[in-house]
């Protein structure tokens, strides 16, 4: 019984991705290269996993249904279906045009609770199926919707900005500095916005991969200024996981107090900082 519960929990964890993953388990998408310079066909492989060690394959594959690719002209299309193996999901993407592509995995999940016959029941669901989870006669319904987005950026031959236009919905990173032109020691500027409005005094963090080889996390914690921007000197070369959440310090799990319907946002991006 216990076992079955955990199994269901694990599946729900993948579905809900970041929102309800245990703190240490990070969902990520990782491109095989961020800059492909070739005079032949350009391809990139995107891996996705939920892991304990950042970019390690140690826990579960990431469900990548709904992965989209925005091409250098700004056109967004669904990615081909990913192959799911034991520890990771993978999809190969052909990059027919020169320029920068944005690869995005976005979704929303709901965690909630209600009272029925004097008992408290909890549920997890996608945003679409949440209503079906609540039976007739349920009272004191509370739900927390988490809107998630993960981005990574890949350039074929020459960087461009057509795919970098902000969506204007949800929590997002607006890369003022091109995300495929990040070089150690140089300055970069990132902006964060929620539903198209800049987020002032908003915290985010960058963690470099390979934590297990160095022991320390080496997390870089930054905060945006009044314009919603942060300008900083780029740290050592590595693949980095940028993450942020709004509201910034919301507790995990469904809210016991406050409004019955709350909305949270989580954002992450996999970015490569290259040597000079």
């Amino acid at each position, binding site marked *: 019984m216990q076992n079955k519960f955990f199994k269901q929990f694990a599946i729900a964890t993948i579905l809900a991705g970041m929102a309800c993953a245990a703190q240490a388990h990070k969902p990520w998408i990782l491109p095989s290269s961020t800059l492909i*310079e070739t005079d032949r066909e350009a391809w990139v492989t995107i891996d996705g996993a939920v892991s304990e060690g950042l970019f390690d394959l140690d826990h579960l594959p990431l469900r990548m249904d709904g992965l989209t690719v925005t091409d250098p002209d700004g056109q967004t299309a669904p990615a081909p279906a990913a192959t799911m193996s034991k520890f990771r999901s993978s999809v190969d993407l052909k990059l027919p045009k020169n320029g920068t592509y944005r690869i995005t995995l976005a979704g929303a999940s709901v965690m909630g609770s209600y009272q029925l016959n004097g008992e408290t029941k909890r549920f997890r669901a996608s945003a679409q199926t949440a209503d079906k989870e609540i039976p007739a006669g349920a009272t004191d319904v509370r739900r927390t919707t988490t809107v998630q987005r993960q981005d990574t950026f890949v350039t074929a031959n*020459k960087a461009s900005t057509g795919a970098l236009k902000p969506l204007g919905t949800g929590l997002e990173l607006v890369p003022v500095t091109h995300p495929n032109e990040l070089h150690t020691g140089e300055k970069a500027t990132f902006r964060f916005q929620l539903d198209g409005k800049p987020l002032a005094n908003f915290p985010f963090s960058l963690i470099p991969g390979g934590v297990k080889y160095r022991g320390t996390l080496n997390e870089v914690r930054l905060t945006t200024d009044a314009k919603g921007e942060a300008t900083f000197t780029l740290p050592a070369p590595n693949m980095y996981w940028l993450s942020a959440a709004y509201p910034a310090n919301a507790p995990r799990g469904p809210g016991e107090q406050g409004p019955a319907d709350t909305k949270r946002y989580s954002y992450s991006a996999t970015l490569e900082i290259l*040597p*000079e």
Partner: protein
Amino acid sequence: MKLSRSLALTLPLALPLVSNGAMAADLTVKFELPQLNVAEYHKPYVAIWIERADQTVASTLAVLYDVKKKDNAGTKWVKDMRTWWRKAGRDVELPMDGVSGATRSAGVQTMNFAGARAGLDKLPAGDYKLVIEAAREAGGRELVRVPFTWPAKGKLAASASGKEELGAVSISVQ
């Protein structure tokens, strides 16, 4: 007192150099390509350029690669000199007359650049770096920067050193 004395000393030296910059400036770059005890050795590709204080490229002096390869195919890997490539290389056509050259063997190498060709005669006064980048197939990549001030106060000589792909690097202008 001390300050005015040193000013008095440097001014007469600096002024003739400014006015006769084109005549005076011949740049010599001496660099060491270390003998490496590795399983697979190929002579490194080397780029040499002058960098402005804001790290942009003022002038590419030399790009050493497999210039003899058919159909200009040796240029395929010049992008392995990542720093030069993204700051200058991707925007130029190779071969470049007077800039493209053959790779060099391990040991101390010397290259001379006439002031007019190297663009030294047109360089505005300021702080610069001579940058040399070596990238080796199946090996590493390293950059060495030698800072200098232009125009030189008297005879210019400066040096720096690499760790792995490059040994001692020195420059002189006379």
